[in-house]
């Protein structure tokens, strides 16, 4: 069962559209696993609708309606594509984020236990990536210059503050140091978004920091 959720302030920023693309992707990935937060999200959207209804109604030119009709006439008929999800294991939003099949992602091996695949969201201020930790593998202790959001996609991991399973949403404040270890039973895959690249704090691994700075593109 999912035990860790985004807090209400994050959900409000998400529902009102005030969140960066990468972070929105993280929250909708969690919501794809979490019926509770989906319901909260829905109620927060209902609130948006009520506020919208309360706005004033300035007149709109007939020409706007005519433009809409003209544009509809010139646009190809038919519904927007409905994405076919053959691969049951990933939420739809994650497939959009990956933009290709999971098998085709490029992975960068950081340690024997950790591989990273960067996802392109066009969001230059945030790093969005998939992390794969081998079963039982440990990620060297690191901290963050900014906040970090993580959603467990498969498997699970633990750190000093808890144990996290598929669907759990973890939010780490700036400068919180942690050293996640994947559960023994299976490889762990996480989606994570951070404001700034993570830095290893353990001197034995500091030499790896340059490797974590992804090359652009």
């Amino acid at each position, binding site marked *: 069962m999912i035990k860790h959720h985004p807090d209400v302030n994050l959900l409000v920023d998400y529902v009102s559209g005030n969140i960066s*693309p990468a972070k929105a992707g993280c929250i909708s990935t969690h919501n794809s696993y979490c019926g509770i937060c989906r319901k909260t999200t*829905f109620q927060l959207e209902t*609130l948006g609708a009520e506020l919208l209804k309360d*706005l*004033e109604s300035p007149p709109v030119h007939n020409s706007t309606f005519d433009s809409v009709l003209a*544009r509809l006439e010139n646009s190809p008929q038919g*519904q927007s594509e409905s994405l076919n999800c053959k691969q049951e294991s990933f939420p739809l939003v994650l497939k*959009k*984020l990956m933009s290709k099949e999971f098998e085709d992602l490029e992975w960068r091996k950081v340690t024997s236990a950790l591989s990273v695949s960067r996802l392109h969201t066009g969001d230059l201020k945030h790093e969005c990536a998939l992390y794969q930790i081998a079963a039982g593998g440990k990620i060297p202790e690191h901290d963050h210059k900014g906040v970090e959001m993580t959603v467990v996609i498969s498997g699970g991991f633990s750190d000093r503050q808890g144990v996290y399973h598929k669907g759990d949403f973890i939010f780490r404040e700036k400068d919180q140091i942690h050293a996640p270890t994947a559960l023994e039973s299976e490889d762990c895959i996480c989606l994570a978004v951070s404001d700034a690249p993570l830095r290893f704090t353990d001197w034995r691994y500091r030499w790896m920091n340059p490797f974590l700075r992804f090359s652009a593109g």
Partner: protein
Amino acid sequence: MAVPDSKKTEDQKDWDACLASIAVSNSEAFADFFNHFAPLIKSFAFSGSSMSAIHADELVQEVMIKVWQKAAAFDPKKASATTWLYAVARNCRTDLYRKLRKFDTPLTAEDLMIEEESQEAFDLLQIKRNAETIREKLQALPNEQRQVIAKIYMEGKSHSEVSAELDLPLGTVKSRVRLAINKLGVQLAPTGDSHD
């Protein structure tokens, strides 16, 4: 900060049914929908960060085109027409903002907010009750809470932008939002996992 409470009693048109007609390409229904909602969308555009009249008009067009194209995907068992429209308008506004700021992303706002089909379709009665509760309680919200909520939702400002604008600590903005959401009866995940 003037809240327009002098709203006429809401006209009782069944917008769910109207959307269903649009889904089967009924252009009269589309005109009705447009006449009612286009002004609200225009207002929504203007309440955000200084959007020009041209871009406000562009937003109205984008939203209405989406309404026509996506009406078939509307499911009255899952949401009311206005809640559905709010999500469409929000996504279009986000995409327009990003375009205007030359923020180049391969993903649309809609792409990033797809949530897997819910197994448990909400029950229709509960949706209506929810909306009613929220509507009633919204009117009773203390001004300072409603103001913050409106800035975030309608003006499209993040918590930190609201905190800067109102010259309030971020923690105060966050707690006003939490208080408001609680009063509105929104159900939250049971968790101590909150943070300031």
